[in-house]
Each structure stands twice: as structure tokens, then as C-alpha cells.
């Protein structure tokens, strides 16, 4: 039995990477076909525009500036995807990242605009709010056996309506949007530490970007290197075995959801405390950021390091969608493509199984021929 014949393809990480690239390719291809159907004339150009994103600008300064804008939105997406993959590793599907993100936004904006607190306290508030909401799902799961997907869905909507109501108190009179940070409470804006300067004075690029990458690394260390990670993953893989060997599986469940919630909540603060966006108090749908986090988590092969890249990619094409020719296509074509990619991620498991089966068969044939 020679297993080292195809070590590269057998490697789990390589398989994940291949699967993700395949998802992206098929997703883009289907997106391209959709564009062709809508208007064949500009389809090729449009798909290129989406993939190029900020590169459509010819001047380097403009490119840098809009790369910055992409990064600003990548940070929260990365946090949401970390939230989802962390919970997933512990056997929980945190579809509630969306809701945790919403309460995070509510908490940090209210602390900033209503209470005029400095940025670090606002950030803390968002983290706490997210953790709290996550813990609610965790408690419901641990103590009342409520499926976390269901409780998270309910909490998503409860959060949305609550936050809308809360933030109506700090909203501009003439619009459905909250006050801008810069005019009302500049002390709540995340410090830039000169990062903005690197991106052609893009004031929205703040410490949020490096912070999110650090968070990804920390999540990786926590999961792979520590006793806590060992316990949490054991609980996720087999909660009965975890209980059998004396781990406190209920505590672990709640802790996991709280950490996942904290990550998502922090993600919201990383966007809204830059002043890049205002909250719209009449929103009738839960923001897609949390759901896109699912895409990023799965596209990143459920690895924290992988999701740094996948989050960037998804944000990259989403921003790219804004540049397509509006007289022919709509910006939602990017949402369409990223939704397709999430859907395709469902097939990754099958892809890996099929690939392994194929490799086995090939090895067997080779082995047979050699004898």
C-alpha cells in the first residue's frame, strides 16, 4: 500500500482549497450566464468589473482608497464568519450571527450616539451584547433542548425589531438613519493609528482591520492549541463522550455560543464605529452580513485562517458589484453570486468524498497492476 503516491491531493487542506476554488469558479460562471441572459452585450465586461472591484480605477491612489473601503467591510464579515465557524466546530450552527451582529450594532451605536461613550467602551458594549444574545441560545439549547438554529432565527428577528426601536431614539429627524458619528460623537470613532493614511487617506480604515485578523489567529490558536479548544471540540463532536469523561458539556455549549456571539457583536462594532455606515431604523430584513458570514466560513474551509481570505473575496466581489453598468445590470448581481457560492459550499463534503473515492480507486488499480 503506497499512500504517498498522491499526498498532495489527499491532504485535507488542499482538498478544502480545491473545493473552495471550484465553488468560486462555478459561482462566477453561473453569475456570468445570468448576466448573459439579461444582456449579452456587456456581460463579459460586467463580470470582469465585479472581479476587479477597485482595480477598475486607473489611478493607484483611487485603487488604494477603494481597496481600503473593501477592507473596512471585510473586517465585520470576517468576524461573523469566525463566529459561525467557531460554533460549527463545536457542533452548533450559529445562524444567529446575524442577530448577534444586530444587537452588537444596536449596543455600540446607542453607547456612542446616545451615551457619548468613548470607542473602547462602545466596542465592549457590542461584544457584551453579542455574547449575551449568543448565551441565550446556548442556555436554551443546554437547559431546554431548544435547537439552536430555531432559537437563533427567532432571536434574529426579535433583535432586529428591538434594535430598530432602540436606535429610533438616536435617529435623524428627517431620515430613517441614525446620526453620523463624526457630527455627534467623534470620540466613539475607532482610532485609525495612521492606517487610513496608507489607503490614500481613507478615514474609515481603522484598527478594526488588523484587529479582525488578530481575532482570526486567536480563534485558530484557541481551537487547535488549547485545553479549552480540545474540550469544546470534543463536546461538539460527541457531547455524550464529553459528559462521560467529565467535561461540563452544558457549560461548554453556553460558553461556545457566548464566544460566537461576542465575535459577531464585535464585528458589528468594527463597521458601525468607523462611521462608514449609519443604521437604518426602518429595516425590515435582518442585515445579510451575518448570513454572508456563513458563506465566508464555509468557503474558507471552516478554518479561521481560510476565512480571512474567503471573507475578503466575498467582500471584494460584493463591492465589485457596485461598479457594474447600472443601465444594464443591478448591483445585486454580486449578492446573487455570493448566494450561489454558499449554495455550492453545500456540495463540498460530497466533493471531498468523491475525490477520495476516486483516489482510492486509482490507488487500487495501480496496486493491482503492480502485482
Amino acid at each position, binding site marked *: 500500500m503506497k499512500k504517498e503516491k498522491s499526498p498532495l491531493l489527499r491532504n485535507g487542506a488542499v482538498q478544502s482549497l480545491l473545493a473552495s476554488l471550484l465553488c468560486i469558479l462555478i459561482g462566477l460562471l453561473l453569475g456570468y450566464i*445570468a448576466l448573459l441572459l439579461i444582456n449579452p452585450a456587456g456581460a463579459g465586461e460586467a463580470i470582469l468589473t465585479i472581479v476587479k472591484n477597485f482595480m477598475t480605477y486607473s489611478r493607484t491612489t483611487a485603487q488604494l482608497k477603494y481597496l481600503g473601503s473593501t477592507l473596512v467591510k471585510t473586517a465585520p464579515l470576517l468576524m461573523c464568519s469566525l463566529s459561525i465557524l467557531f460554533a460549527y466546530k463545536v457542533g452548533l450552527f450559529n445562524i444567529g450571527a446575524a442577530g448577534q451582529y444586530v444587537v452588537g450594532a444596536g449596543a455600540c451605536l446607542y453607547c456612542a450616539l446616545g451615551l457619548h461613550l468613548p470607542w473602547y467602551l462602545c466596542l465592549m458594549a457590542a461584544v457584551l451584547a453579542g455574547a449575551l444574545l449568543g448565551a441565550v441560545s446556548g442556555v436554551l439549547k443546554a437547559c431546554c433542548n431548544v435547537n439552536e438554529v430555531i432559537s437563533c*432565527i427567532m432571536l434574529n*428577528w426579535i433583535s432586529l425589531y428591538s434594535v430598530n*426601536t432602540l436606535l429610533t431614539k438616536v435617529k435623524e429627524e428627517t431620515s430613517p438613519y441614525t446620526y453620523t458619528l463624526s457630527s455627534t460623537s467623534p470620540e466613539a470613532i475607532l482610532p485609525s493609528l495612521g492606517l487610513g493614511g496608507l489607503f490614500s487617506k481613507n478615514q474609515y480604515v481603522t484598527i478594526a482591520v488588523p484587529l479582525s485578523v488578530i481575532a482570526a489567529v486567536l480563534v485558530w490558536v484557541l481551537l487547535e492549541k488549547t485545553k479549552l479548544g480540545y474540550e469544546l471540540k470534543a463536546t461538539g463532536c460527541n457531547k455524550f463522550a464529553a459528559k462521560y469523561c467529565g467535561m461540563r458539556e452544558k457549560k461548554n455549549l453556553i460558553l461556545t455560543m457566548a464566544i460566537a456571539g461576542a465575535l459577531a457583536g464585535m464585528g458589528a462594532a468594527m463597521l458601525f464605529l468607523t462611521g462608514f455606515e449609519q443604521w437604518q431604523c426602518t429595516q425590515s430584513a435582518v442585515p445579510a452580513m451575518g448570513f454572508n458570514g456563513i458563506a465566508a466560513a*464555509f468557503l474558507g474551509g471552516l478554518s479561521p485562517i481560510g476565512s480571512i481570505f474567503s471573507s475578503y473575496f466575498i467582500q471584494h466581489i460584493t463591492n465589485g458589484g457596485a461598479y457594474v453598468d447600472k443601465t444594464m445590470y*443591478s448591483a445585486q448581481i454580486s*449578492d*446573487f453570486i455570493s448566494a*450561489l457560492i454558499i449554495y455550492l459550499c453545500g456540495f463540498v463534503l460530497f466533493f471531498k468524498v468523491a475525490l477520495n473515492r476516486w483516489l482510492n480507486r486509482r490507488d487500487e488499480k495501480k496496486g493491482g497492476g503492480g502485482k
Partner: protein
Amino acid sequence: MILLLQYMLIFASVLLLVALGGCFSEHSGVINIGLEGIMVMGALGGALMMKFLPDSTSAFVMIVLVVLAAVLLGMLYSLLLAVAAVNFKADQTLVGTAMNLLGTAAATVFVKAMNTAENVDNVSSTIQYINAKKAFIVNLGGFEFNWFMLLALLALIGSYVSLYKTRFGLRLMACGEHPQAADSVGINVYKMRYAGVLISGMLGGLGGIVYITAGVSEWKFENGVAGFGFLALAVMIFGQWKPTRIALAALLFGFCRALGNVYTGFDFLKSLELPAAVYNMLPYIISLVVLAFTSQKSRAPKAEGIPYDKGQR
């Protein structure tokens, strides 16, 4: 008061239809989180039919064709779930979530493209159906009776009968409870799961068109269906996967929603000065609380969410 009743019944009809759809899917063993997306697609199908049928179409033909369009598109869309969950053993929660995002995105892209093609300056994602919509409504005094209410009632009866009185229902539920047992007596689990998902697509799509014609005469597809698919999921669980209980749950949740729309008409409620959001939240809070108390002995189909693999037994 009549307005409250009217809203309650129409919202309850939507929830009932979609929740029954979810019920079929789950009884076959497939969790359908993607109901929201299916509703959007059904709504799109119906809305397009209303837009393109001439105003002179008779009410009956209009109803039949619109329903047909919604049902067909809903079923077609639900195939995405069936293929992934049954043949490819994908994570059903993941696929369902993707379908919700995809539904809204695809509908928006499509409607915008269509609007832009008609008029270059029109980049909205709205479809209007002011006149066509009249076909569904019969005025009984002050009460606007909607044919869809009758349809929902029929769906309820049909679901009850087919689940509990027919061969199909027995086999479907066996697949959701113990697919190995079903397989061992020669029932094709894959086929039954396809059937379950397709029925959920049918009823979900129908629910979609009912939702966007309830109260308004145009729909902006960027908004999706504002969480009604998820609410229907709550209705289904609240109803413990049983059609009759689902109907009661739908009425209760419909009442809450209706209250959110018309509470300003009641002096008593108005004097409470609660924001509308409270009424919108109410169904979710109720179901969460009920879930907390009832989940220890939930009657959810035992094998739901677990891909069935013929090789594994």
C-alpha cells in the same frame, strides 16, 4: 375590528400555507430553512403572471394562472434543496440559508433587469399589479374576502387527509422518522423526500403570492418577504408538526401580526403607546418561550436533517 379580522385571516392563510409546506418537508426528513426564499420565488412567479396577463382576463382564469405560476416556480426552486439534501447529502441548514439569500438576490436581479429593459430609467425592483389583484377579492360588506383564504383552508384539509389517511402520508412520515425501516419495506426514501420537499415548494410558493397580495398592490422584491418564511417555521414548530395545531398556531401568529398593522385603530392599544415593533416581535417571543418549555419532549420527526445514505445501515 373587521379590518383586524381580515388582516388576521389573510396573514394566517400565508402562515398556514407555508408552515404546512414546511411540515411536509420535515415529515419526509428534510429541514427546510429555505422557505423564505421559496416564498420570494412563488411571489415572483405570481407577480409576473399578474403583470403580463391582460386586465380583461376573467377573475377565475386569473386566479388559476397566478396560483399555477407561483406553485410552479416555488416547486422548481425547491428542487435546489431537494437535489442538494437528498442526492448530495449537503448540510440542510447551509443550503436553506443559501436559498433564502439566493431567492431575494435572484428575484431582485431579475425584476430590475426586466424593469430596466422596459424603461432605461427604471432601476427599481418593484412590480405593480393593482388591477390584477382585484380578481382575488370579493367584498362582503366591509370584509374583503380573499379567495386565498379558502385555498388555505383547502390546503389544511388536504394536508390532514393526505398525512393521516393515505398511503402516501404513512410512507412520507416513515421516511422522516426511520428511513432505514422505510427502505427495508421497499419504500424509496429518496423519492419520498423529493415529494416532501416539492410539496413544501408548492405550498411555500403559494404562500409567497398570497403574502405579497395581502394589503398591497405592488411589491419591491429587494425586501424579500420580510421574515415570513421564518415565522412560518415558528408556526410549524409551535404546531408540533401536526396540521390542525399548525392551523391554530397560524391564527394566533396571524392575529399578532394583524395587531401590528391596525393597532392604532384601537384606543385601548393606542393608549399603551407600544411601538409597532412590539407586535411584530410578539410571535417570535411567544414561540421562543413555548419552545423553551416544550422542547424536552419535542415531537419533531426523528430523522430530520440527517441525510439518508443507502449504503449505511
